[in-house]
């Protein structure tokens, strides 16, 4: 089961941990964290270019042979997200796009209507769409029906580290999904990532939990192990929960 690759559209990945590059103190710290995480797919944001403002993140990811997942972070409408995705495809020569349309700055929660609208347009335009969404089982199905290659429900709002606030909804989403489900946002520590996998998610996407940890490299390593452990446990089939004790030693 561990050998099974994650398949998103036409892309196959051995690692089930997708890392976001936001929040790292500098590129050296980011590089060590990315290597420790074992990730094969990493997000970048699209921003206005200026002459001196080359961040070097592209060169780093190319050197590490990590596939790029551009996002539409910062977009507030379907129209903005579609244009940003098209620019990302042109700039980075990839049809992969992490679609995110934020409703407002305080919560950064996904706007469900704009997200679905943008997803339909981007799928029609040939993109491999990974859609960031609320932990809404109905919307998750609608995004899948719209042709998204992966659906990415949040555990909690971006950057909060609050973990998975509604595990049952995540299980509901997983139970009906025909495309990979990636738990995206809200992860605070390794146990959150393990739980996501135990609930049946196919992968985990996180950034802040690693990049803003006191020791990003060590936390990246923890997340890598957590994703593997959670997936193993899911495959192993956990025991059912009981109210009363059940002796694990034989009666004398």
């Amino acid at each position, binding site marked *: 089961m561990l050998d099974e690759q994650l398949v998103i559209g036409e892309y196959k990945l051995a690692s089930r941990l997708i890392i976001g590059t936001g929040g790292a103190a500098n590129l050296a710290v*980011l590089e060590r964290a990315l290597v420790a995480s074992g990730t094969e797919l990493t997000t970048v944001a*699209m921003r206005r270019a200026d002459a001196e403002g080359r961040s070097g993140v592209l060169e780093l990811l190319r050197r590490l042979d990590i596939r790029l997942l551009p996002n539409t972070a910062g977009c507030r409408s379907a129209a903005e997200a579609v244009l940003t995705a098209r620019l990302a495809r042109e700039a980075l020569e990839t049809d992969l796009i992490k679609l995110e349309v934020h409703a407002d700055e305080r919560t950064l929660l996904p706007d469900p209507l704009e997200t679905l609208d943008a997803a339909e347009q981007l799928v029609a335009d040939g993109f491999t769409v990974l859609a960031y969404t609320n932990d809404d089982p109905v919307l998750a199905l609608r995004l899948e029906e719209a042709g998204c290659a992966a659906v990415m429900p949040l555990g909690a709002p971006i950057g909060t580290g609050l973990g998975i606030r509604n595990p049952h909804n995540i299980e509901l989403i997983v139970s009906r999904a025909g495309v990979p489900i990636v738990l995206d946002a809200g992860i605070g520590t390794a146990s959150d990532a393990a739980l996501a996998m135990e609930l049946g998610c196919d992968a985990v996407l996180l950034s802040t939990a690693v990049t803003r940890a006191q020791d990003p490299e060590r936390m990246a390593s923890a997340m890598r192990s957590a994703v593997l452990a959670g997936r193993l446990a899911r495959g192993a089939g956990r025991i059912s929960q009981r109210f009363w004790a059940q002796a694990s030693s034989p009666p004398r």
Partner: protein
Amino acid sequence: MAAQVSVQVNGDWRDFPDGTTVAGMLATLGTGQRGVAVALDGQVVRRGEWSEVVIPAGARLEILTAVQGG
């Protein structure tokens, strides 16, 4: 001196010689070509067309690149 056209680049008004192409603008700005994309009035200009598309006066240009994020 060649006539100038005023265009909006990433929100700032700039002047370029009349007839400047997208490729010419990128060279003047020093943005480089690798890893960037250009939208002209809300439409993506394909990389292969950069040396042909002339920037019209009053155009609104967005030049984007990838940065750490997400």
